[in-house]
Every structure is written in structure tokens, then in C-alpha cells.
């Protein structure tokens, strides 16, 4: 279907179903229960899942396929955000032109940076992209303040021209981004017993965009172009020996992945119309590297999983404080309770970065394929258990065949 193989169609289908049902799946606890704080089903966080999912999918198209480790991808995200907010300020609050412009701007920016950076590879490429991203960040904070809003960030204002819709909404408030009248922050709430589910227009819009982006990524993975990129990853010298120039392919991959980052940035601005330079700081670039590696570099679904995991930790795990921990372990004798809480405490709450760092190191050391490889290994283990039982029969058969 849609030009995909059977397995890919299934994968796309599963992702689509998960995306549609996410407000249910991530909201497993009733509103007033003690576990309600683990509900991740609120629109703000769900949007972040899919937006960073797009960012990571795009990053994976570069790093996963060509093996070029970029440490400056957040620059494209930031540029995309700025472009979208400018579109909101100048043209219209409709998200379509804003996102189109952010993808385009990020793409042009990626052509420029990629053309220069891709002259080198390996660690030098990483440093070059890092240098460009840091330059962009520093300039956005200082000289480019008229364009970027400097430290306060770029925000909407009542005095903006907004050629198509007029400056302010009917009530004289700041207008909000929307899609032909459907406002991005519109949401419908559904109460089922003690559960409260929120369905937001913004989330479903971003989710749809992510599905499109994911579909496109599958097509790129399976295309001859994707094959070429993999060839470059495994041995660039041989590619050169066969008379092919690798540069245009890597540049194309770089630009595509930059456009994905721009798309994510544009969506971010569409959900919340402001843009700041801190989105471009190099730790933000490091974050997308973490997401991709954690989920599984070079796999289709891995980056999305990684993005989800990191954003979940950032927003949910970081909220656990020592009172909650004491609450959980209240059934234990006092001394033991304090002891256990004091052991766990550094790893959660504000210390979630520590857990993230440890998980990341473990993944790089033991599971270079990320969570996806972990899942595959477990699946293989289970399958082997099952097949152990009929092993004797199988052996007899092979012996007979010989």
C-alpha cells in the first residue's frame, strides 16, 4: 500500500493508530488518583512527543543513513521557529504558510551550512556543524536582535501588520495560530468515569504532520537514494572508486534532515507562537543526538521512541519529588524507607538528567542499536525459547535431509 512493503505498511499503520489513540494510551490513570501525575496525555506534552519525533526522524535520516554525526541540528529547528513566527507576524495566522516557510528557510540554511561542512567528515564535520550552530545562536542573541527578538525571543504583537487577517482578533486580543478557522489550541474534553481525556486540534495536526514525515522517511529509507546513503556510510572510499561522487547525496540528506528540523521548529511555533534562541544552543543539538541513539539509530521507529522517552522523562519523571517517594515507600519501616528514598532520590526529580546520562551510556556501550535492538534481542530470545521445544524434531529432519 502507498508504495510500501508489507512490513512497512504494518509499521506505519501501528504508528498511525498509536498517534490517534495517544490521548487514551498516555492517560491510563484517573484524574484524582495518586498516579495522575504520570499521565502524559495532556496536549502540551503530546505535541512535544510528535514534534521532537519529527526532529529525531529527520536527524536519523542524516546520522542513521550516512553516519555523519552533526552536532548542530538545533540551529535548523531555531531558524524554522523564527521563520514561522515571522509569517504569523507578517502574513496570516494560518499555520500552512508559516510551516511552509519554516521548512523552506531551514532547507536554504541547510544548503549553505551543509555545502561548507560536508567538505569534511568524521569529527571535523561534527565540529564544523557545532561551530555553525553556535555562531547562529550567538548572532541570534546579539546582532540579529531586530530579527530574532534577542533575549526576550520573538513574539507576536498587536501592532503586527498580518496582511491577510488584520492585526488583532475580534476581541482585540492577540490572535492564535489556526488552520482555516480551527484554532491550534482548541480542544475537546471527554470524561469517562474518573478519566478525563483531552483531544487537542494542535496535537492532531502535529500528529498528522508526523505521520506524513514518517511515511516520507520510510520511502527515503527504501529508495535507491537511501541505499546510496547507506553505501556512503559503510564505505565512502568504495563509493568513490565506483566513480560516484558522494557529496551530492550527503548534501541532499543533510538538507532533507535540516528541513525536517525546520518543520519541527515551525510546528513548535504553530503550537505556541514564540521563538527563542535557546532552542539553538548546542545542548539542544545534543538532545536530538541522545534521542536518536537511545531509540535506535538507523532504524525507522527508533528516533520516535527515543524522542518520546526523553520528553516523558523531562516532563514526568522530573516532577517526582521526595515527598512523593516517601509516599510510595510509606509501607516500609521508617529507617528502610529513608534509606531507599535517599538512594533513589538523586536519580529522579531534578536529577533526571543523571538517569538519562546513565541510560544513554549503557545504550551506547551494550546496545549500539538502541531500544529497538533491545526489543529485537528480547523477541529473539523468546522465539528461541519457544523453538527449543521443537528443536529435537527439527534436528531429526535436518539429519534426514543430509
Amino acid at each position, binding site marked *: 500500500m502507498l508504495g510500501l512493503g508489507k512490513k512497512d505498511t504494518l509499521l506505519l499503520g501501528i504508528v498511525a493508530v498509536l498517534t490517534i489513540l495517544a490521548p487514551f494510551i498516555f492517560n491510563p490513570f484517573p484524574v484524582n488518583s495518586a498516579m495522575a501525575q504520570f499521565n502524559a496525555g495532556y496536549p502540551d506534552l503530546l505535541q512535544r512527543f510528535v514534534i521532537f519525533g519529527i526532529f529525531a526522524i529527520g536527524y536519523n535520516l542524516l546520522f542513521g543513513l550516512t553516519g555523519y*554525526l552533526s552536532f548542530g541540528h538545533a540551529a535548523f529547528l531555531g531558524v524554522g521557529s523564527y521563520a514561522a513566527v515571522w509569517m504569523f507576524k507578517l502574513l496570516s495566522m494560518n499555520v500552512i504558510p508559516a510551516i511552509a516557510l519554516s521548512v523552506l528557510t531551514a532547507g536554504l540554511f541547510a544548503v549553505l551550512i551543509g555545502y561548507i561542512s560536508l567538505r569534511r567528515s568524521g569529527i571535523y564535520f561534527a565540529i564544523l556543524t*557545532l561551530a555553525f550552530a553556535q555562531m547562529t545562536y550567538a548572532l541570534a542573541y546579539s546582532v*540579529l536582535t531586530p530579527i530574532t527578538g534577542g533575549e526576550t525571543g520573538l513574539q507576536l504583537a498587536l501592532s503586527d501588520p498580518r496582511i491577510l487577517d488584520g492585526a488583532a482578533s475580534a476581541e482585540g486580543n492577540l490572535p492564535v495560530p489556526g488552520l482555516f478557522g480551527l484554532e491550534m489550541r482548541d480542544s475537546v474534553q471527554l470524561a469517562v468515569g474518573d478519566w478525563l481525556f483531552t483531544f487537542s486540534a494542535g496535537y492532531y495536526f502535529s500528529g498528522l504532520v508526523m505521520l506524513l514525515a514518517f511515511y516520507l522517511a520510510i520511502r527515503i529509507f527504501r529508495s535507491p537514494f537511501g541505499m546510496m546513503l547507506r553505501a556512503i556510510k559503510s564505505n565512502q572510499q568504495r563509493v568513490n572508486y565506483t566513480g560516484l561522487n558522494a557529496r551530492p547525496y550527503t548534501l541532499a540528506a543533510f538538507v532533507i534532515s535540516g528541513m525536517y528540523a525546520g518543520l519541527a521548529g515551525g510546528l513548535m511555533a504553530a503550537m505556541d507562537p514564540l521563538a527563542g534562541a535557546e532552542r539553538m544552543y548546542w545542548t539542544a543539538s545534543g538532545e536530538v543526538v541522545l534521542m536518536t541513539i537511545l531509540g535506535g539509530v538507523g532504524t525507522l521507529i527508533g528516533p520516535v521512541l527515543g524522542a518520546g522517552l526523553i520528553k516523558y522523562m523531562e516532563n514526568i519523571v522530573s516532577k517526582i519529588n521526595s515527598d512523593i517517594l516517601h509516599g510510595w515507600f510509606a509501607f516500609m519501616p521508617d529507617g528502610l524507607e529513608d534509606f531507599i528514598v535517599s538512594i533513589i532520590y538523586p536519580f529522579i526529580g531534578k536529577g533526571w*538528567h543523571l538517569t538519562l546520562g546513565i541510560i*544513554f551510556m549503557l545504550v551506547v556501550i551494550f546496545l549500539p542499536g538502541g531500544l529497538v535492538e533491545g526489543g529485537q534481542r528480547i523477541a529473539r530470545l523468546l522465539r528461541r525459547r519457544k523453538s527449543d521445544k521443537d528443536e529435537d524434531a527439527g534436528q531429526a529432519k535436518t539429519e534426514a535431509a543430509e
Partner: protein
Amino acid sequence: MDAIILQILNGLDKGSAYALIALGLTLIFGTLGVVNFAHGALFMIGAFCAVTLSKLLNASYTTIDETKTDFLGNPLKVETPYVMDWFGPEAGAAIIDWSVPLAILFAIPIMILIGVIMERGLIKHFYARPHADQILVTFGLAIVLQEIIKYYFGANPIPTPAPDAFTGSFDFGQLIGFEANQIIYPYWRLVYFAFAAVVIGAVFAFLQFTTFGMVVRAGMSDRETVELLGININRRFTIMFGIAAAVAGLAGVMYVPINPPNYHMGMDFLVLSFVVVVVGGMGSLPGAVFAGFLLGILESFASMGAVIDVLPGINQIIIYLVAIVILLTRPRGLMGRKGVMEE
């Protein structure tokens, strides 16, 4: 003229820090072939060694002095550091005052130990893996180290002063024949530069004039042959990793009075130090030192008012700009050797 000298001096302290970190980085790269993204974290740990020592020395007990009262009329609580009890009030006060320089002695064994543990425990397993994996795992390690420090010391910078003798500034201009008050320079920054020069000199002398250093240099240029001669080069490289960690740590210790340390200072310096290494030439020790000072001084020139008027924002980007130009025109860096990390 005086403005130029002042900018050069201003560039020296940052340049010294860049040079020391970059020296360690390139030492690790040259010996073990590992790109160490956790090197900034080692710099930070060094700084926190100084903070720890200063806190330890300031550990005190409280007594109530009945003869004096505070402004509320309550008996005054007097805190006496234990050090003052042990060494007498004057010597004790002097020890506390000199806690930052004393931390050098405290930091060297700790940093060498951390470096050796890091190499034996983690990095050893990554020699055969691609550079990208080395970058990623050390990046993860940097996050972990940084968060551990944040857990114990909090997120705020911790001011730790230099000894009283070195606080304040002096008139450097008069020393070299300018008019008074033209070139005022803080003492500690000069101390930092001198210290950096000594450390760099010591590392070079160690490599150049000792048998150990000779073997290490031989191992850097041809590891296999050295191994065939029956020398355990791995053990020597492990020790070099410890020394590189100590160099970064010392840079951190002495940097404390210039900038109060916080948990992410390592990351801030790391990015720039990598740029320095690349500009100097991957694997070239003199290149790293030279590029460190060069970029430090360039940065300080770029932040002169006259320059910013012409090229606004140049002070923010000058280092990266230089790095990009160098990488594109001289791919091996200023002093890079042939055959080191050529793609």
C-alpha cells in the same frame, strides 16, 4: 599601543585555560586515539576539587562567646575553623586563605585517579569502535559527571576567592614603561598564566626528557613497533590519560577565582577547546597550545569596543569563524601532522 597590550593580557587567561584543556585533549587523542568529550567535565571536577578543599578547610565548630553580643543582644556565636585549632590561629588563617593553591596538591592525585579509572573502566572498551561511538559515550559520561556534581554542589556558582595576596589588580603598564593607570591587570590572571606556562612546560619536558616520555612519544608515532619491542605501551598510555586528566583538573583548580565554578562550566569550555584542538591540528601538542593562546587573544581583541563598532557581534563568533576558515583552508589545522585522523 597600551590598548593592544591590555587586550593581549586579557586574552592570556582564557587562552591559558583553552591551551591547558586542549593540551590534555590532544594528548589523549594522540596516545589513545580517543575523542574525549568528557574532558570538559574533568576541567569542572578540578574546579570542584578546589571548592571541596576550601569547604573542608573552612569546616568549623561553633562556640558561644558570652562576653560579646550581637546586635539583637544575644550572646555572639563564634565559628572557629578546626584548622585554626590545629595549626594555631595565624597559620590556620593562612592555610584557609591559600586554599585554592593548596588544592593543586589535593587535585593532582584525585584527577590522576579519576583519569585512570575512566580509561580502564570505560574508554578501554572503545578503542576498536568508531569515533562516533567514542564521542557519544564520553558525551554521556560528561552528562553523568556533571549531574553528580550538580547533585552535591547545587546549580549555583560557588565563589571561592584567591589568596588575599593576589586579589586586586596592579599597574602592569608602569612595569614596562607606560604611564600610570593605563594597563591595570588583576594579579590572579597573571598567576594563572604563569601557572599554565609552568604546567605546559612540565608536560613537554616530561615527554621530551624522560625515558617514560620517550617511550610514549615512540608509541604515539608507531604503537605496534613499540609493542613488538616488548614494552607495555597500554600501561603507559593509561598513565598519560591520567596526566591529561590532571592537566585539565589543574586548569580548573586555578580557574576558580577567575570565574566561580558551576556544574556546566566544563561543557562551556569543552566546545571551545575542541575548536582549539581542531584549529591547532589534531594530535599536535604544540599546535594545541599555540591555538589556545591564539584564539584566547583573538577573542579578547574582538571584544574591543572599536572592533565591535565596525563588525557588530564579532566577539561572539570569532572563534568559530576562525575554526571554519582554518578547517576549510588547512584541513589538518595549523600544525597538524600528516596521517592523523584524515577522515
